[in-house]
């Protein structure tokens, strides 16, 4: 699984580098930026969403366990949980914004 993921990533990177290094294929290189950006945003968002999901899940699990063990501390745990979830989710939103910039604003070229 890990091998195939790495292979896919390497193929995408090598393909874009090959397009860029070939002087007569400059037009093709410009055209390849689009798919490369799409790949980059897809992989970036997948990593961000996956890791943020893991973080939020771990936080929620710990809060539920804490409340089950000590119901009186539920209020304080909930506030801490809200803060943690907000921090983690803001990271995912930042990643989304950066990906949208890469995809639509195209700061690295057409």
């Amino acid at each position: 699984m890990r091998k195939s993921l790495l292979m896919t990533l390497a193929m995408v990177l090598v393909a874009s580098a090959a397009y860029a290094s070939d002087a007569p294929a400059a037009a093709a290189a410009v055209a390849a930026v689009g798919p490369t950006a799409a790949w980059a945003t897809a992989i970036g968002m997948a990593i961000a969403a996956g890791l943020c999901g893991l973080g939020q899940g771990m936080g929620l699990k710990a809060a539920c366990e804490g409340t089950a063990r000590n119901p009186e501390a539920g209020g304080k745990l909930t506030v801490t949980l809200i803060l943690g979830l907000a921090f983690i989710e803001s990271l995912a939103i930042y990643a989304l914004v950066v990906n949208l910039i890469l995809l639509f604003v195209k700061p690295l070229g057409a």
Partner: protein
Amino acid sequence: MMQGTLVQKIDAVLYRRGFALADARSLMRNQILLAAGGSALVCLATGFSSWGLSFAAGALIISVNFWWLAKAAQALVKVRDGAVFTLLTLFYGRLVLTGVAIAALVAWLGASVFGLLAGLSTVVINATLWGVLQIRHKVPATGNGKEA
């Protein structure tokens, strides 16, 4: 006096809307005040430029997001029978709406990206300030050395 009344009014509205925990209410109230005050200030300072409006849009999106997140977190810790599906729908619906709104702003409405990011950061600023204030309240005052 007027500030106290405004805070009390916001607190009353939040309590009626399901923010039963005092700390969660205080967090949400601070977020509303920070987002509204910051947006008004930035819009006036920049003459309602694209940057200011993007800041206001980002602050609004993240405040609505935080509202639903806080409500969902309060309910998730005390899950009642039959509420799980509604909660999950609300949770994912909120995420989808946030994503669509940000995509529309960046891709089609041409919002200023840095303004939008600054607006989205209001929730981080609010949470950080709240945490720092909590730590400051809990740290015991250091004596003058004569106690020993």
